[in-house]
């Protein structure tokens, strides 16, 4: 069976010149939650955008459940892989939570009843059923983030890509997010600087630096390697740093 996401010798540059990704090779199996970590500019967001076809013109082979990421397969890939933007304000563009969560299913041709069913199911998964008629501009950052995830869940993707999901969340909302992410059975790829979140939610982790994969392995093992992390501009997760008082 094909891996959910597979990159074979993928190289990419936004402009002709400096490569943002160099010869990237990895595969992510179905149902596995994988963290993408690395300093700013390491190529984390680019990988996520490449998987969903938001950036094109790469060299090598990138595939999602066996379908090569190219123009012909884009609709199919986007149905399978949902992308949660870093900034919830970019993700949410309709007036109310219901309208935004319903946008995807409605565009994919679901009937009115099916759309409503999917919306309610997605909102239930993120504990937001009661906020379905809430105006988006009246929502807090944490609520917006959960609504963003619901907009993707309503499309029933098999893969969920999250770009910095814990940014601007308070500890309570962050904890809630971790619980929700851990309760989602889909394959997840989480690009984040929040190594504690990665530790809590991901089985595997890819460490990137300068557009190259430095290490791909077990999250617990990788995130305990202080020297390796520090060599690439990262620090041990706070929970592994011990008491500093």
């Amino acid at each position: 069976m094909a891996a959910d996401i597979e990159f074979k010798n993928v190289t990419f540059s936004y402009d002709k010149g400096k490569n943002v990704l160099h010869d990237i090779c990895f595969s992510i199996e179905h149902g596995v939650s994988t963290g993408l970590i690395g300093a700013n500019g390491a190529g984390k967001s680019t990988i996520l955008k490449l998987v969903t076809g938001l950036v094109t013109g790469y060299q090598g082979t990138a595939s999602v459940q066996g379908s090569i990421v190219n123009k012909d397969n884009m609709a199919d890939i986007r149905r399978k892989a949902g992308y949660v933007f870093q900034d919830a304000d970019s993700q949410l563009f309709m007036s109310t939570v219901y309208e935004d969560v319903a946008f995807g299913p409605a565009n994919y041709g679901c009937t009115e009843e099916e759309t409503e069913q999917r919306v309610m199911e997605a909102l239930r998964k993120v504990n937001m059923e009661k906020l379905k008629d809430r105006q988006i501009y009246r929502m807090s950052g944490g609520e917006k983030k959960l609504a963003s995830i619901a907009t993707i869940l309503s499309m029933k993707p098999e893969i969920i890509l999250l770009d910095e999901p814990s940014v601007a969340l308070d500890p309570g909302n962050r904890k809630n997010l971790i619980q929700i992410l851990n309760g989602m059975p889909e394959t997840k790829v989480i690009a984040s600087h929040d190594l504690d979140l990665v530790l809590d939610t991901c089985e595997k982790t890819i460490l990137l630096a300068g557009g190259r994969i430095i290490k791909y392995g077990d999250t617990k093992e990788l995130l305990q390697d202080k020297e390796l992390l520090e060599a690439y501009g990262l620090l041990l997760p706070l929970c592994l740093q011990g008491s500093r008082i």
Partner: protein
Amino acid sequence: MNKARQAAKDIHISDNAGSGSSAKGGIHPLARLIVTFIYIILVVSFPSYDLAGLAGMFIYLLVNGIWYGISAKPVLKRAWPVFLVAILAGSAGLVTDREVYITYSGITITYGMLGMVTLVLKGMFCITASYILSVTASAAQICHALRLIHVPEEIIMVILLMHRYLIVLIKEVERMQQAYKLRAPGRKGIQFKNWGSFAGLLLLRSMDRAEEVYESMKLRGFHGSLKYPLLKSGKRASILYVFLWGIFLFIFRFFPVFQIAGSLL
């Protein structure tokens, strides 16, 4: 409140007043759009001096205003430019149309005055009816209604995308204004010398943001044609709504209801 923030809030309020998973009062947006359209056509079609007949059309605004809980203040706030234009347009009649209509207690009212007041009222009524529609149906709902009456998809798309882009633009203005104010305390507004860079940066930032929003739409199946979650609305109630208001408006337009009522008393 910051003007940009107020503008964004107004858009959201108008967006949200008609949104949700069910239509308010069970009336389909198309029914409201049709009635508003009929209303505007009939109001505009009143003769220049038929002030008494035109006054009857106020009942529609009054009933809907009460039904949807709309206060007069925001309407007047939005209608004043139309009010001014109507006064300017009607003021020509004050000079050219001096024929006396009535003299009461030494006060002479000319046809020109009557024409001006009628024109102002027509403008106000049309604006108010449009406002009521806009706060009882979101842009998406109105566009959905337009689609049902086979308005070309390209026009609907342009309306919707302009609506979305406007929100993005206003939010960026708000962010930049706040950042500016925090570093320029005590200054009123943005200094003239900074307008160029402010406008340029605003354009670039709003384009970036608009691109992200567009990407988000594409990732959720958007490919040139927007689908909207349909509203639960009562078909019978909507038909009845159009029928009753239609009859009411036609009667007030084509029959001198107040005069008939007055002669009966």
